[in-house]
């Protein structure tokens, strides 16, 4: 079975204070730590488990510069067999459509049965690339998967369609699945594990290698343009309602009524 997993390197924002870069269109990245996007971690785990069950080859792909190699190494350490870095100055400033365009150009020349993507990324929070890529590849998709089994040329996927309603759908391979949290518990990656794959060659591809004009990718190929980023004003702290339990609860109910919340 040929499995492709698309991943992204993102800033770790859990503890980070954010600062907007001078151009107003991105973050100051000097003080940020980066790691694989959480949902992509689920996707890599799912890809490796499919290989372990059915045999085959897992190929990890990312779009980025040489810094992005670290997430590909991480995927290799988890069990991916090969890695491709789509690296070209022309890819810079891409919106999800331009990213999907680059991934599509790479994947269409590869054999694949299943393409896995994270459902969303923690930075841009767009959740678009999987669905767009499925449309460009003209294969069925299931988004937000919380369960996945492949058997006899078909994938059975559990996913939520709306508030609490989950269902299992079956699609023919090849297909594209986006991984939601809850799909699996990704395996631990040790420093030793990463060291073991340090010598695995990572294939680099430029826009030209993929047969793409520079105008079809990156900012030029994007369908939406980032105008600016804003940090919300620091909110004031909550009004802490003091007094006895009954008094605090009574004040709370009064406040909520005043605000029209009840």
């Amino acid at each position, binding site marked *: 079975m040929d499995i492709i997993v698309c991943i992204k390197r993102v800033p770790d924002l859990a503890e980070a204070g954010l600062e907007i870069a001078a151009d107003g269109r991105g973050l100051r990245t000097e003080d940020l730590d980066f790691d694989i996007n959480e949902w992509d971690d689920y996707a890599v785990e799912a890809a490796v488990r499919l290989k372990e069950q059915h045999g085959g080859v897992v190929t990890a792909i990312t779009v980025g510069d040489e810094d992005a190699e670290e997430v590909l190494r991480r995927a290799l350490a988890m069990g991916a067999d090969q890695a491709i870095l789509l690296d070209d100055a022309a890819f810079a400033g891409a919106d999800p459509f331009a990213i999907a365009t680059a991934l599509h150009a790479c994947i269409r020349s590869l054999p694949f049965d299943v393409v896995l993507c994270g459902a969303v990324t923690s930075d841009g929070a767009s959740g678009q690339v999987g669905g767009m890529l499925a449309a460009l590849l003209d294969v069925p998709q299931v988004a937000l998967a919380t369960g996945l089994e492949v058997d006899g040329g078909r994938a059975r996927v559990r996913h939520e369609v709306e508030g609490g309603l989950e269902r299992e759908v079956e699609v023919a391979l090849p297909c594209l699945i986006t991984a939601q949290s*809850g799909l699996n518990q990704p395996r631990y990656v040790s420093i030793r594990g990463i060291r073991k794959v340090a010598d695995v060659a990572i294939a680099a591809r430029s826009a030209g290698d993929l047969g793409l004009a520079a105008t079809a990718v990156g900012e030029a190929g994007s369908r939406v343009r980032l105008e600016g980023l804003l940090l919300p004003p620091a909110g004031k702290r*909550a009004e802490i309602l003091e007094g006895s339990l009954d008094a*605090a609860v009574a004040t709370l109910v009064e406040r909520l009524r005043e605000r029209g919340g009840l």
Partner: protein
Amino acid sequence: MSNVVVVAEVRGGLLKRPSLEAVTAALQLAGPSGGKVVAIACGAGLDAACAELGKSGVHQVVALDGAPFASYSGDGYAKAVAEQVRAAGAGAVLMAHTAMGKDLLPRVSALLGTGIVTDAIAVAAQDGSFTARKPVFAGKATMTVRAVAAPFVATLRPNTWAPAGGGVPAPVTKVAPAPGDLLAVVREVVAQGGGRTPLQEAKVVVAGGRGLKEAQHFKLIEDLAAAFGPGVAAVGASRAVVDAGWRPHSEQVGQTGKVVSPPLYFAIGISGAIQHVAGMRTARTIVAINKDGDAPIFKIADYGIVGDAFEVVPALTAAIAELKHGR
């Protein structure tokens, strides 16, 4: 002049409320240009839902109504919707940012060769094109983007626009879906949470976290939610308690779960990790109940009670029940 398409969501024959919110946004976008708003619904047995949709102020309803569309399939729906968007000559396409919206609209936008803004909290027609604002970086920042391709496509965060209604009935056009387009087969519906108020549509979300100590103590959360009366409040959960297996993943509020924006949100025994805050920060009023007065949740809440949830929540439940039912 720019027509605007709303992709409406119908489930079990009922029109989903966030679809009416999308109609409000569509009417605002189309208004200045004199464009028409066309609502597209997909499914089987859509008559009642389309009648309601038709009275929401839209100019036309297109019902892709037939057995092949009885259950959702991303591929089949996307092809049919993209075709109707082209037929409507739409300059913009809007849908609610629900599980179905997240699955469907990116695919539709790629079929149309255009981009999309997901989870938008504001959209505007400006200087001949469209702009949208959306939270990014775990809700720590907002981004403004401009569409440079047509049509402009966006999914809208539920509970951000008021639902539309009260218009004159618009004509409903029925289109039979082509069966060959469906690639996904539904094997089993795990009707978890059936009949409950969907989290993203609820007027009130009562969410519990690790501070409740044990799964069974979520009864306190359920009781408070129930005190608001039927169909008003939904139960949410922090990631920690979902990971611990106390609550199903479908109830998880946060970056890895659902993003909710209700008029009223209760965070009970939830410390307020950024992961959680990203999923509820835009709620209009936030109430935090936590033993730890230094918990980060109090930084983003409007009102806080520092105290033991096991004492505060029952008292609050009684007060709400009294207010709602006079008992």
